């Protein structure tokens, strides 16, 4: 994977945010319905949850409700939970392909830096392999192709 970081943004969504709150509290905000539903979804949306099993192998199913009355369901499974610094889970809107989300929570000064990454292919074996002829990451491939498209 070395040398591909600059290219990643082309197909994986990556964001970082700083919060003026301790890491333990930021982690807690992800860990139960009580907290998660207070912020889950875009501005002016509300959220409801059928299930939130915050443990490795546990699943969740939430619905967000837009101001125009439209609802969107989503679900997934928690793959890895390391309190208070890392949460990995699958995420799929209803009727859409599955993605993998990795949330990393680290202290930053008196607050917290949250790093977020979402990518297609929840299956690690599908994401990267060094067994094939060139061992290319999808990151690099898509970056190269998008770059070519921009030049054309």
């Amino acid at each position: 994977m070395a040398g591909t970081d600059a290219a990643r943004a082309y197909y994986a969504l990556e964001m970082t945010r700083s919060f003026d709150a301790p890491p333990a509290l930021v982690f807690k905000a992800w860990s139960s319905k009580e907290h998660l539903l207070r912020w889950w979804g875009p501005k002016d949306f509300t959220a409801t949850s059928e299930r939130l099993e915050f443990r490795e192998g546990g699943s969740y199913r939430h619905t967000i409700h837009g101001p125009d009355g439209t609802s969107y369901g989503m679900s997934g499974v928690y793959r890895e939970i390391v309190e208070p610094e890392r949460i990995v889970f699958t995420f799929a809107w209803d009727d859409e392909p599955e993605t993998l989300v990795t949330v990393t929570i680290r202290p930053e000064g008196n607050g917290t830096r949250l790093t977020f990454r979402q990518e297609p292919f929840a299956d690690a074996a599908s994401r990267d392999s060094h067994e094939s002829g060139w061992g290319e990451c999808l990151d690099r491939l898509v970056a190269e192709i998008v770059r070519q498209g921009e030049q054309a």
Partner: protein
Amino acid sequence: MDRLSQTLSALADPTRRAILSRLSRGETTVKDLAAPFRISLPAISRHLKVLEHAGLITRGQDAQWRPCRLEAAPLKGVADWVERYRAFWEGGFDRLDDYLTELQSKGDSDGRH
């Protein structure tokens, strides 16, 4: 299967991604494509069929050579799809920021629960 799912399914195989990577450097014959792999020509052909079916490559009409050419549009579709999530998360993180402020103003900043 919709277009996006079909693209992702085709991309899920590392050999197929390697083939696309090679094609990103230019049109190539099947024989040249197969050279770096330890798999047979028929196996490469099967991968090419999947890629062709997914619209990720096109093949020339010359019956003998049938050079393969990368088609970038479906890959751009993958990048666009992932990008669509950005608004969902950015909106959520804005609200998370407000919620954390609210929690702390209540003195609940010690990470209980």
